């Protein structure tokens, strides 16, 4: 848990001198340096992990070594400045986004108070504009004439160790949530800038263990958690027993690595591993069994998430490549993807470009409703919420909404599906059809303006809890609003990192609010063939008015 008690934190964020509370720093930002102390940085990657990754992608992760962040000697290669500058030059030539975003910011400040980390810390370097300037200043100092000649007058500076420390601090206080880019009049996307900065940091061997170890795991075992095939399967099958206990139905359709299945289902691996993701997983399986979907799950491609995307585009591509490779090996027709945020950023905006075209797959078509998912015609991969919404629309799910009556639900738009996909209505449609008590958070905190959980892009690690609780404050605060107004007690989402991190965030700021995936709510409400009288939900918690609702069938709407 966080080092600072919530009562103290509640005062700190309002009273401590910060740019959010009206304090004006006396020193120019270029003259303020960072100090690392326990709690404000993520632990560096272990030598063995970097060695492993270096074998697959030589040179991209720096020299494997043990180093400490608080030390003044990071054991960087002698020519590290050159490596960074050369890396910048290459990326300026490879990414138009990077080049344009380095040049066109007018520093209007519209983005300043859009960042959850700025709102929670008041640290000026967490204003997206200034976060970008950390990199931009080095760009100006080395790649523009004015910056080379006039130096700091023209906003340019040299690449020094102090700058590198600053990068490591603040590009790991950005979750690439893209909220700032919604408001930027030129669409400058801090996520792009953070990605570039992190690529550069990795080049000189500055990376965090929380990101690189899961990435290494994912490469070798198929998933971030490092679950080996038999364990992955056992974990998943273990949940079948829970499902049987709750519903009285033993599901038959779950298979692993089965050739010839129609659909390959890819999930964020946390969904078979930990609460509350496991309940979401139970929901998926119930839906598939209910409609008789011919699907299989792969242990080789058992991770939808992609911690590689928090390092560099090469590792992102390498990890993501498993999905198409496995889909083709198994001979499935198309791929269905579970509820995961950054997984879907990668799937929706990068996958087909990086690893496509998937020649042997077909345009996804729901075997149940006949709906052809034209929006996935090239990438051949459908989002669980799209799939479920289509099922509900065609009245293919028998639903008893009242089974979620013990929940008063609000929906957290996960950043990536919201601002990297435009997946806004499908989750809402599902909610409206599986639960009776649904309330939206205030409009500045949902949909494309949604606030990050505060722990995305591999910041979901325990050593920076205080920071995470600050970064998550805007989200938690909006939940608190509907908790007080409508008695909301359940925060649903479509992201595995959310399911883990919002749980911690709610425990801290709003201890009466639980966290779930949407498919858990669907699973609760599904009326399964041959089920017993349901008096518990998938968490073994009592249903409201359990025992009285016997024989009640769903109040599912007809498809319009």
């Amino acid at each position, binding site marked *: 848990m966080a080092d600072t008690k919530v009562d103290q934190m509640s005062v700190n964020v309002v009273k401590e001198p910060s740019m959010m509370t009206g304090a004006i720093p006396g020193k120019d930002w270029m003259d303020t340096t960072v100090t690392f102390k326990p709690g404000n940085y993520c632990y560096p990657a272990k030598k063995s992990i970097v060695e492993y990754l270096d074998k697959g992608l030589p040179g991209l992760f720096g020299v494997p070594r043990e180093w400490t962040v608080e030390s003044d000697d990071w054991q960087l290669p002698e020519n590290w400045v050159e490596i960074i500058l050369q890396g910048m030059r290459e990326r300026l030539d490879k990414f138009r986004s990077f080049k344009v975003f380095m*040049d066109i910011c*007018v520093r*209007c400040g519209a983005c300043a108070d859009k960042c959850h980390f700025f709102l929670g810390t008041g640290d000026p370097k967490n204003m997206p504009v200034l976060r970008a300037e950390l990199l931009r200043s080095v760009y100006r100092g080395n790649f523009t004439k004015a910056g080379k000649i006039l130096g700091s007058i023209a*906003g340019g500076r040299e690449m020094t160790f102090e700058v590198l420390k600053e990068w490591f601090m603040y590009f790991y206080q950005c979750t690439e949530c893209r909220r700032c880019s919604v408001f930027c009049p030129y669409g400058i996307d801090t996520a792009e800038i953070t990605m570039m900065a992190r690529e550069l940091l990795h080049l000189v061997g500055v990376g965090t263990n929380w990101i690189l170890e899961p990435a290494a795991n994912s490469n070798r075992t198929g998933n971030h958690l490092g679950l080996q095939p038999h*364990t992955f399967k056992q974990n998943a099958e*273990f949940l079948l027993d829970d499902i049987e206990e709750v519903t009285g139905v033993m599901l038959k359709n779950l298979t692993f690595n089965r050739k010839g299945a129609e659909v390959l289902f890819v999930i964020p691996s946390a969904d078979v591993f930990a609460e509350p993701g496991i309940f979401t997983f139970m929901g998926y399986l119930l839906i598939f069994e209910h409609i008789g979907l011919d699907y299989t799950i792969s242990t080789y491609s058992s991770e939808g998430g992609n911690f590689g995307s928090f390092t560099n585009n090469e590792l992102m591509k390498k990890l993501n490549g498993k999905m198409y490779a496995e889909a083709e090996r198994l001979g499935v027709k198309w791929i269905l993807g579970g509820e995961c945020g950054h997984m879907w950023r990668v799937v929706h*905006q990068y996958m087909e470009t990086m690893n496509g075209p998937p020649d042997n797959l077909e345009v996804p078509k729901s075997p149940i409703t006949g709906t052809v998912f034209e929006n996935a*015609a090239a990438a051949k991969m459908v989002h669980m919420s799209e799939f479920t919404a289509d099922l509900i629309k065609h009245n293919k799910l028998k639903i008893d909404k009242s089974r979620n009556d013990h929940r008063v639900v609000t929906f957290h738009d996960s950043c990536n599906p919201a601002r990297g996909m435009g997946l806004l209505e499908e989750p809402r449609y599902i909610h409206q059809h599986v639960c009776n008590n649904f309330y939206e958070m205030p409009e500045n905190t949902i949909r494309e303006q949604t606030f990050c959980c505060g722990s995305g892009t591999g910041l979901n*690690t325990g050593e920076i809890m205080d920071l995470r609780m600050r970064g998550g404050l805007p989200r938690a605060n909006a939940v608190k609003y509907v908790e007080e107004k409508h008695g909301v007690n359940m925060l649903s989402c479509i992201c595995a990192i959310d399911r883990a991190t919002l749980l*911690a965030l709610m425990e801290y700021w709003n201890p009466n609010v639980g966290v779930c995936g949407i498919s858990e709510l669907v699973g609760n409400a599904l009326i399964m063939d041959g089920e017993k009288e349901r008096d518990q939900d998938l968490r073994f918690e009592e249903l409201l008015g359990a025992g009285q609702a016997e024989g009640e069938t769903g109040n599912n709407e007809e498809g319009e």
Partner: protein
Amino acid sequence: MKHAFLAVIGLIVISWLGSLVGLDYLFGVVFPYLAFAIFLGGFIYRVTNWAKSPVPFRIPTTSGQGKSLDWVKQDKLDCPATFWQVVGRMILEVFVFRSLFKNTKAEIHDGPKLVYGSSKWLWLFGLAFHYCFLIIVLRHMRLFLNPVPAFIGQIEFFDGLFQIGVPVLYQTDLIFVGAVTFLFLRRVLIPQVKYISFAADYFPLFLIFAIAATGILMRYFFRVDIVSIKQLTVGLATFSPAISGDIGSIFYIHVFLVSALLAYFPFSKLMHLGGVFLSPTRNLANNNRMVRHVNPWNDPNIKPHSYAAYEDEFRQFMADADIPLEKELPPEPEPEPAAEEAPAADAAAETPKPAAEEAPAADAAAETPAEKE
């Protein structure tokens, strides 16, 4: 800020002195030509330089419902899926600053309680500034064109609709100065904006203010020889520049400042004029799952850890867990029950941890790397 201020003062002094010592041709002809050439060449250079870098990934910031199932209403302007929808989004972005229109202001109060209020002043004054600038530039076309096109007369008529003063006061002049002043004041008065501002932010504001001020002085207060000016400007436009008569220092100061702005433009943040059109988060359709997007430097040699290598490493476990294999196990004299071998993760399944984040369960991945690619 002081560097920027001094720079503009310096420009004014230089041009004033220049006009005093009779360098009319230099300031009235040479510098304007030079500046325009730098502007044009620089602008083209910058835009083509940007365009030379490819767009490897299609990364629009989706700000509304994307194209999905038929019955889900797509937000075509905030989440375009086709070329023409992108054009729509870009028009709104370029002509009415749609993203900036969404601006909010956040405050934190006791509780803690975060509140977000609408904040449209920057949008309003930004829009006013840019449109007034445009109208003023169009009005100035009168000086370069002979005969003067009718639309310029119409612009002038509407700009001076209230018929105040002689010569008639243009509203755009007033609004323009007000908007520039606003943009300056918010830069020094809002702590967050002040903190991020440096010379490159103040210089264009001071310069533009000085241009506006000298222009206004020339029109409403100092008398300048308008006939000689038109002769010079039309001459400039027709590449036969000639200076006749004494036009007055204020004119040369004004023209030199404009020249400075033109020459400065391509190398400054003012290039947002060109950049906004090339911004990949705005000018791309959100259709990446629908239509293939090609990355010209995509590296086909980056391949996933192969299934074969994976199965080689875990074949025994997979066989024991009844997971289908590509290659069967070699016949073993004494098959040993391997189901016991993963106690850690088994335990994890039995007592699910409160959150995945607490337990990366690394399985010591890196200890036995099995890369065979």
